[in-house]
């Protein structure tokens, strides 16, 4: 993808309203083979590498912290399946998802931002947690011309307004 560096590219970008998520927080007691096996079986996708997202039937599986992964799905079921290897908590209500669509999403994420969303290496399958318009967010490119911005619901209102300005 050619990165357009000319002064200000005001490519179009559409901004979705904040949507609920089905994220479940999985904190591994130890990042070992046992955990990987049980996780893979229960979630239907491998444990994502650092800064990466894998796709499972129930939705994206996002690397969040050194021993923490945000899977999608039924928290209670996952808690039972992973009881021996991880601490599992439902955090579906702790995140909203705002989808940006259009070629201008990288430029839009640079406004009042700190992270290099214009870096071509940051593409589909990556995740970057950073600050955007003073709100803690997770940025997950979902296609060449689309990115999902995960944000806590309390910040979602102001962030959506700022992204749509």
């Amino acid at each position, binding site marked *: 993808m*050619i*990165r*357009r*560096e*000319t*002064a*200000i590219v*005001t490519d179009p970008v559409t901004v979705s309203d904040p949507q*609920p998520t089905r994220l479940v*927080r999985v*904190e591994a*007691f130890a990042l070992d083979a046992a955990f990987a096996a049980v996780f893979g079986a229960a979630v239907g996708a491998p444990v994502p590498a650092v800064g990466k997202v894998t796709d499972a039937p129930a939705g994206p599986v996002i690397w969040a912290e050194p021993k*923490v992964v945000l899977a999608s799905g039924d928290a209670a079921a996952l*808690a039972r399946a992973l009881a021996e290897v*991880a*601490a*599992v*908590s*439902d*955090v*579906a*209500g*702790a995140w*909203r998802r705002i989808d940006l669509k259009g070629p201008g999403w990288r430029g839009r994420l*640079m*406004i*009042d*931002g*700190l*992270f*290099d969303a*214009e*870096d071509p290496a940051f593409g589909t399958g990556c995740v970057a947690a950073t600050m955007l*318009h*003073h*709100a803690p967010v997770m940025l997950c490119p979902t296609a060449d011309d689309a990115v999902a911005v995960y944000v*806590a*619901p*309390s*910040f979602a*209102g*102001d962030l959506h307004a*700022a992204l749509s*300005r």
Partner: protein
Amino acid sequence: MSGGHRLSTGGVIDRSQTLRFRFDGRDYAGHPGDTLASALLASGVRVFGRSFKYHRTRGLLAAGVEEPSALVGAGEGGRFEPNTRATDLHLYDGLVSESQNRWPSLDLDVGAVNQWIAPFIPAGFYYKTFLGPPALWKLYEHVIRAAAGLGRPPQLPDPDRYERRAAFCDVLVVGAGPAGLSAALAAARSGARVALVDLDRRLGGSLLGDPVTIDGQPAKDWIDAAEAELRTRDVRILTRTTAIGYYDHNMVYLAQRVVEPGARTGTDGISQRMWRMRAGRVILAQGAIERPLPFEDNDRPGVMLSGAVRTYLDRFGVAAGERFVLATSGDDAYRTAVRLCDAGLRVDAVLDSRPSEAIDPALLRRARDRCPVETGVRPLRAIGTPRGVTGLEVRAASGTVKYVADVVAVSGGLTPSVHLHMQAGGGLDWDEGRGVFTPTAPRQGQVSVGACAGRFQLADALSDAWRAGLDAAAATGGKPVADTPPRSETWAFADQASAFVPAPGVNPKKVFVDPQNDVTLGDLDLAWREGYRSVEHQKRYTTLGMATDQGKTSNLIGLARLAENEGRPAPQVGLTTFRPPFIPTTLGLWAGEDAGFHVTPLRRTPLYDLHAAFDPPWQAVGYWRRPRAYLRAGETLATAALREARMVRTTVGITDVSTLGKFEVSGPDAAALLERVCATSVSKLAVGRGRYTFMLREDGLVNDDGTVWRLGEDRFLLTSSTGGADRMAGLISYARNVLYPDLRVGAANVQEHYAAIAVAGPRARAVIAAVVEGMVPPRHMSLDRGVVAGVPVLVIAASYSGERAFEVYAPSHQAVAVWTALAEAAEAQEGGLYGLEALEILRVEKGHVETGGEIDGRTSAHDLRLEKMLNPRGGYMGQLAQQRPAFADPDRLQFVGLESLGGPIPEGSMLVERPGFAVQGHVTAAGIRVLEEGFVGLALLKGGRARLGDELLAWSPTRTASARVRVSEPVFHDPAGDRYRD
């Protein structure tokens, strides 16, 4: 002599278009490509402003951002910008501008009277007088403040927007002159991700004022070709953009003018944009700034820097006057003389202070073809009036000579711009001959090329910059190309001698070093005589270099004088500190999008819109906003709050407590971790049960309180206060990851996963029973799970209000349905909504301590009557620290209740025997009895736990209010808890 005028041809301007603008109420015209300065100069304007102290007339000295004198107010209403440099404002149609710091007018300024008392107001005079009591200084100050200041202050809010953008690149090139363009080309061709910025509207920098040829092409064509190539290589080119600050780890702040000062914005409403540019390497190509010469009355309008005269001629097609004399100590002024002659203007003489044997004979020959050149000649004084210069008197070998001129072009040598190099951290080498500091020993990724590195030869600058571009690309992963650097054949003369010392016979008191602050050489000598002998003392005592140009044309002359007085070389005396911003930058740009309402984010609970529908008075709690009450027609906040409190005491009320801190701790070691963070025991809780708990800071004082619930064998829910939520999140993460990394546990911040709705009152159980399917209302301090309107909920039974109460936890995105169901059920039970104000009245009556109130960061567990709940097994955070002697002091401030013996107790008031007596404590909360009569309060009182029954005065001198009170147990409503215990 008529002063400045537009030549019929020449200049990089669009003569086909005319731009109309106003200055001091008069209409003028200019062309696209003009600055306000060039357009006014072309219209014959000579006086542009008045100096700060003596209100002497000031003309244009320079053509760039180093201009110290031509400062104007630009724009109208909320777009009015004082202290705008006329040289840094690119003309636009409809501009309205005005001169400043003069009354009643620029030509007739009363302030000029200061020149008559000049002998009595040298530098620092105000330290020696205006003595006496502060009240007297207030009177003097009123007059001084009115006279001080330059532009008039803006009065109206700013209608425009300011954007802030992050940006990243491998190589940032600052300055798009010959050196900058050369470096950018080399780096871009070598595959680096390059950004090129320049504060001008066009690329080219000094080349726009010089008809040199590069690679066989005229400079203008070479610039256009370079720009075209750079754009094809995806170089981010930002014009009207100034690198104002070089911060840590190669982050450079770039201030971009999207529209000119005072101008209307485009549809996006953006006036300026600040770039946070993170670069791998930074190539500084900012050029050099020309120094004036020291001679008497060198501040007269018409005395201009020789490079500026040349720039107005070649860049703007404007002759600064009609008869020119050039005084110089370097080769550069000769180029101006030659260009003036080329334009058919009269140059009476080039007066070079250097002896002829120190000047390149080829240069002398070439110049003498065009105009008279005298060597070994030094300027004594400008001849002229406040309206402008009319000539120059100089000292030659043969004695003093006078020349007629309406423009005295001066050149004391070029000073490399080392501002950003020094901001980045680095050293300076001193070149005694040329009188210049050049950058060395960079501490970050910066390298200086071209004139700002002291390389004034165009050919050297081009090749040196090219190499720097290749090196920078290589250092950031690029592959340096083998192409040859751009070459320039013409004008190889770039020598200069320093000319800091005025000619013998010059009166230092009449030589202006800092023209804006009216600082003379005499002032510098006075400072030195009085002992202010460090370069910083000289600056602060005389205000040299503290004006809006920050000494760009004056600091070195001031330093040289100090070095001469000290008898030490300049580098030993040193320079003052270079600080951001490189040029003054509006505060609105710094605030960016955060101005006005968006100064801080607004955090909304999932139920925010339901509250907002009532348009309630809000209470800010950190970034949150919580409704204080739901006023009905005719109610005040106080009456509504009391109604709501009585409703909770008599029927039932629901309130939004979603902002509480909430943490789900699970895993085999969950209880172990919680017993490190909480100061009470946790592990003895049975599944389905909960308890009150509190947390200490590491220094043993109480940090926050809340409740903890055992959801399952290895799963707990911990709540904390709204105010303490972020602190607790940090503390729990610190404990889990730093202190006890080996525990098999997970600690999830679920503050925002759960919305939380409190249901309190005698009929709370009825509401829960009616609304929550699949469970019966749990007994006090127990929990259960159920379903409300199809939404799975967790219901805990805990009371903050003192009534039977429950808290219903539902996933935030499904909370509206749960709230609506509970609200309907409450109304069915003759209850309703209650806000923060009622909650406060209820909790005061119940005597619960609150973070931010009684928990004020200075109270211990014992102070707050919580010591009996401390975990006997210990091991909790803060345990050791609370064993320090002070914790046992008998007269510590301790938590007590207060019963009023009269009217309302003023909240926050001091507890004293009688007015004026020693303070023994203070009221932390005060409220009205909800159902009974009377007023109560909570307080922290010295040795309070042993003073039951004492009578004191709750005294508030600031509100002239007080109430006699009796110390009581800190609980007034249902002390035994019969209303909710099972």
